[in-house]
């Protein structure tokens, strides 16, 4: 797709979504912001796994780095919000570059193990240094919407607009980079690293670059998640990393566009589970286990029937028809 046409499409779809937010209930607007942010988080995994063939179970940790960096710079240096987004993105990218150096030497389960250790270990650091304020976390805020937006422009519309604009900008960047020579290099790496090396591709450097960009994307997602939610150890636990991987599998690991589907599922499942649990009598056993059960079932069904995600399945089906 021509990049100008792509830009036009991104702008139009962003404008439609922004306009839609003015028409729906505030709770749905908040969930919309969550979906946009999760979609970005899932995209960071799609980029890393679907394109460069590296496995990460620890992108939640990069999200934490982004959120904490942004919050600390806002609290201590009083930087403007958009600058904190940049700080969050680049801090996580830096951490990704450092980890990527080591990760380039690992592959498969070893890399998964290393990133898993990061996801488990990093949030606990928040309890070791007073600057992170332990379990209470940090108060990172987007403030209130400017008064000239009018009274009907509520807090969550403000959150949604900020989140969506950032997510769409980053998605546009991702879409472009994956269709550039870097994207083709990563695909070659994923397909056959030896053949890629024989073709003159720098395997190590390319892997580190993918890891760095993926971490930066996750960092921005974490920063935005912290803006609308909680910046603390429980906000970026192992569950978040696993949820992102699950979302990536559900949406098809190779599809950036499909990440939206995975994000919708992640946000919808708790609400769906709550409705079902209520019908079943709200017993503790049901309410605490049902979301996990639904998620696991979906995951198994996806792997069995649409291993490349529903979006890819539909595309193949259409291609077969033609």
């Amino acid at each position: 797709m021509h990049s100008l046409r792509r830009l036009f499409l991104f702008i139009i779809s962003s404008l439609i979504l922004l306009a839609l937010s003015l028409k729906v209930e505030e709770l749905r607007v908040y969930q919309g912001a969550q979906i946009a942010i999760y979609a970005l988080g899932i995209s960071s995994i799609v980029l890393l796994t679907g394109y460069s063939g590296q496995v990460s179970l620890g992108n939640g940790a990069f999200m934490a780095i982004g959120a904490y960096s942004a919050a600390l710079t806002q609290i201590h240096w009083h930087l403007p919000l958009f600058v904190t987004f940049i700080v969050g993105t680049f801090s996580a990218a830096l951490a990704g570059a450092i980890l990527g150096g080591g990760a380039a030497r690992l592959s498969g389960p070893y890399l998964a193990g290393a990133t898993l250790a990061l996801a488990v270990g990093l949030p606990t650091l928040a309890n070791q240094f007073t600057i992170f304020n332990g379990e209470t976390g940090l108060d990172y805020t987007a403030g209130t919407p400017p008064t000239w937006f009018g009274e009907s422009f509520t807090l969550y519309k403000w959150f949604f607009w900020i989140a969506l604009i950032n997510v769409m900008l980053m998605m546009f960047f991702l879409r472009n980079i994956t269709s550039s020579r870097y994207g083709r290099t990563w695909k070659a790496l994923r397909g056959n690293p030896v053949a890629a090396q024989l073709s003159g591709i720098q395997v190590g450097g390319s892997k580190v670059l993918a890891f760095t960009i993926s971490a930066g994307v996750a960092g921005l997602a974490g920063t935005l998640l912290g803006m609308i939610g909680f910046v603390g150890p429980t906000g970026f636990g192992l569950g978040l990393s696993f949820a992102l991987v699950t979302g990536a599998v559900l949406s098809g690991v190779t599809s950036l566009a499909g990440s939206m589907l995975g994000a919708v599922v992640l946000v919808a499942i708790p609400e769906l589970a709550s409705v079902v649990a209520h019908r079943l009598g709200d017993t503790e056993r049901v309410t605490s286990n049902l979301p996990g059960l639904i998620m696991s079932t979906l995951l198994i069904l996806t792997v069995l029937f649409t291993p490349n995600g529903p979006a890819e399945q539909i595309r193949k089906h259409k291609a077969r028809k033609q």
Partner: protein
Amino acid sequence: MIGSKRKGLGVITTAAIATSALLISAIPAHAEVGVSSSEIKLGITVPQTGPAATGYNKVAPAMKAYFAYVNANGGVNGRKINLIIKDDKYIPQEAINMTNELILKDKVMAIVGALGTANNLAVASKVQIASRGVPSLFVNTGYSGFADKKKFPTTFALFPSYAMEAKAIAAYLKENLPTAKTCVLLQNDDFGADAAAGFKTGGVTFTETVKYVSGTQSSATGQTWIGKFATAKCEVVVLFGVGTANAIALGVAAAGGYKPQWILGSVGSDVTTIKATLNNPQATALMNGAIGASWAPDSADLTDEYAKQFREINTTYNAGAVFDNNVMVGMSEGLLIVQALRAAGTNPTRKSLIAAIEKKGSTFASAGYSALGYSATSHVGQTGFWFGKYNLAGELKSVDGKYTMYTTDSAAGPVVKTEQKRLPMPAKGLPSN
């Protein structure tokens, strides 16, 4: 022709006026979110599942049971109270999500008894309940920051703060155990920081201070804490952790034969939690002889009129639940909420509810032994603690039959000793204010 047009217009106008009049008459005089002619909708976020649920999961059902009792006796000015309980798993992000559902989907009039310092802080910041004008009544935390009316204008505290408790314990230590080598166990968050500030203001110097990370309490970490206390030869140990942490400390110390004079903070002395954590119904024996601080009577005190009335309500309306301090807290909060709603007028609004507590809150009947401090300038509830000793059953008993209150503030104010003074329980536990 012209005449028939005019006639038609007249019919339309009359119909429009009649419809408008009908519609206007159908709208209640005071339409407030969560308040209908037959119901008042309230919401609470508490851990009903997850590691922190033990004990805490009894608070909301107890409050609901008390409301069921009030509803069965006519409700609040003819309206039934409908309490919607949401499980936040003690996770701040979940508290944000659940509060969003309560306010935006269930459309409750007010949040009541929301539990946890971090959760309430996260909700205040991200849901911005204050700017939405949503009252958050009688939060279930002792974090002193919630007394800041400028920062939390719609939030009301009930418990005395952790800082107040620490100052009271400091005063008690100076008075009763002035020369003992004293040590303390604190949680490494705002709960612990609030207490640490109170101990500092109270002038206590600890030989050993052990801080644990919330959620990491286990037998293994307990061994480390007790090891440190034993090495420092602590004669008095203040356990100012949550129930699970205090239980582990008591269990590990007993197993190792370490027997200091324990002082248990009010947060972590719940018998149900201690028994469940150690998985031992006889675990209360470990509390025997420990000194305890409390702002209200012990739930096992059969001579207390509040505990007695709540116990009766619990038997009928909270089927199967063992009556303990968690149930007592839930019902005490319920009692205050009903009085606040009644004081807010026959057609209560969010604004009138807040104004009513500020104006009349200090006259509400409460199970706590110190006077309520609500006023136009203060959202602080209880302000004092009494000290007693735990017996084998884990019941806190006054040593001399008296309830001397150590009353103070969360800042640098002095600790004042007074005899307990409170309003009597409303007849049959049903407010008539």
